[in-house]
């Protein structure tokens, strides 16, 4: 049979867009696995996921970057809301918001490369936070594109290691996500 699978979602016109979903959830053991399990079970993408307790230790704040058509994003937010541990969520992409990601990058820095590397870090407003004879470790914050641009600007061979946290986001202006 060439018929489409009866399990497939209807083909939608809207194309996949990047969304950044912020979630307040109970700071309980297993809450993270409920969220990540939901994404794998239903075949949704996760580009990045960050989570940490908030100023109220009974709550965690999670930021998920995902891509999907409008229909898929609608299902993702509905399914997340259904999880008993999820207190509140917002799709930050719906309104102006700020995104930041932290990267730690260890680069080769010896001889005349050393000065060049320092200058490059300055241009991107990075900070050198660890130094050895042959390496720098640079801390860089910004949105994902800025971090990508920094990596792009470096000589590939000089990169020893990168660690990225994934995006955290917050709405601009008066909008807040709280209980």
């Amino acid at each position, binding site marked *: 049979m060439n*018929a489409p699978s009866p*399990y497939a979602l209807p083909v939608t016109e809207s194309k996949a867009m990047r969304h950044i979903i912020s979630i307040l959830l109970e700071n309980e053991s*297993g809450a993270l696995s409920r969220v990540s399990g939901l994404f794998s079970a239903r075949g949704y993408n996760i580009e990045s996921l960050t989570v940490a307790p908030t100023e109220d230790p009974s709550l965690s704040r999670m930021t998920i970057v995902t891509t999907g058509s409008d229909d898929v994003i609608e299902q993702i937010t509905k399914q997340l809301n259904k999880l008993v541990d999820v207190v509140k969520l917002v799709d930050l992409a719906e309104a102006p918001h700020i995104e930041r990601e932290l990267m730690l990058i260890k680069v080769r820095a010896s001889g005349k490369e050393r000065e060049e590397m320092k200058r490059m870090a300055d241009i991107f407003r990075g900070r050198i936070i660890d130094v050895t004879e042959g390496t720098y470790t640079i801390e860089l914050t910004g949105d994902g594109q800025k971090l990508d641009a920094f990596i792009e600007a470096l000589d590939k061979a000089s990169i020893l290691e990168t660690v990225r946290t994934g995006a955290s986001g917050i709405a601009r202006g008066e909008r807040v996500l709280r209980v």
Partner: protein
Amino acid sequence: MSMKISGTEISGKATEMTGAEILVKCLAAEGVECVFGYPGGAVLFIYDELFKQDKVRHVLVRHEQAAAHAADAYSRASRKIGVCLVTSGPGVTNAVTGIATAYMDSVPMVILSGQVPTHAIGQDAFQEVDAVGITRPCVKHNFLVKDVRDLAVTIKKAFQIAQSGRPGPVLVDIPKDVTAARCAFQYPESVPLRSYNPVVKGHLGQIKKAMQLLVEAKRPMVYTGGGVILSDASELLIKLVKSLGYPCTNTLMGLGAFPATDRQFLGMLGMHGTYEANMAMQHCDVLLAVGARFDDRVIGNPAHFGQVPRKIIHIDVDPSSISKRVKVDVPIVGHVPDVLEELLKQVEPNLARVDRAALDAWWAQIELWRGRDCLRYDRASPIIKPQMVVEKLYELTKGDAFITSDVGQHQMWAAQFYKFDKPRRWINSGGLGTMGVGLPYAMGVQLANPGATVACVTGEASFMMCIQELSTCKQYRLPLKIVLLNNRYMGMVRQWQQFFHGNRYSQSYMDALPDFVKLAESFGHVGMRIEKPGDVEGALREAFARKNDLVFLDFLTDQTENVYPMVPGGKGLSEMILSEEL
């Protein structure tokens, strides 16, 4: 746990009890009369407490899967909640099929599982399994109780979550040391959950819009699912449909919500729905969907369904069920009875606006479709036709029995030929399609409704999957009637192989079947084999006359009979295969 219990501060004066005692007290406080379970190492303290009291009855099954199924059916067939109790490790893994079955059909249920002591968790201890991890995708929610002081609150939460909003199974995993530890006990009235507040009232503006669409419809259709049964909204639905005079269809899970003997009922819809129900569903211009979810077995290919323009109103308590497979025009999130009540208030003043001429024309079209008599079969056959057995069963029980089924052809025939006029009478596994549920379901139904007539329509392949429960039936003297439609095939698999796999009956023949009569007798029951159509009625009559016995009726039926109509997988609702076309 940081949950605050408002107004139920645990007082210092409360007596200290063990976790096991607390657990049993909680069950009694919840009004639980019956627990289905199987003992084991991790739950010995709990079983010891059950032994010491007589408020909560324990029903010993022969396999934990049956405990979960029986508890599930206990919920489905009553307004009480089913509870099952299993030990750690294999106890809980055995129950998983039953939990997933309940989850797919949104059945409220609480599963209590034993766990190895807290200090042994993660040590690969004997009979240790990550119960919370294994069940996470097939429960509404689950808990691991690490401290006896959290036990009572957690049990309360479990019962609250299982029964509210879109219902579902909730598992509470309890380590053995927690059942032995002591603390003061007080059972909270309710536990507020800031992260869980299911919507009850529907949006009034949306309800008004819905009424507008409904009265302006030229070709209206009402399509309802399991949500109407689960929320006990059947009476309101009947009132609404009756006052509007519109046609109504039910899903497999929704049968009984609208009386099947009513003229306005078009039968079940979907893959094996009636011609008239599927055609009306496809060609209506306004569709009212209530507590149903447009799943693949109901509307077939959503793209094909979408080819006909129609306005859809969808009432459901679960927002994620709305606009999931089919785009909806008027979504109404809310508890079905509350929304229907609002709708009903607005019917009277708007009734005059219904276009009677258009409605009459629509009914004339529906009657033409109904005239196809899509469920007809060869009544003169010299071999027993399975449909005939169900028809006779319906006549003899006057449509008043509780019917459970397993999964496959017999399930579809039971759904098509037994006319359910009341909700909660038709108990089967719709979403997960779990073979083997029939017998444990019948046990749960009978224990929830002592004295009621309960029949299990089953197939030989399904029945063999939980056959050990015949022993449980003997122990608790459950006078079930087992109606086995024995075609020596996994009939539905065979049917698909006939239609779509060139008659290659790969592994679908049931070889080496037992002598079911002797087998029933060996368990202490009554067994009968029926081979001729002329003997069907007499055998059923005799079986139902035996009020106190479980009677196992082994009907040797036509091996090649198929279920019609049929919407092949991936096809559109109106692309049915009808019996005469083959």
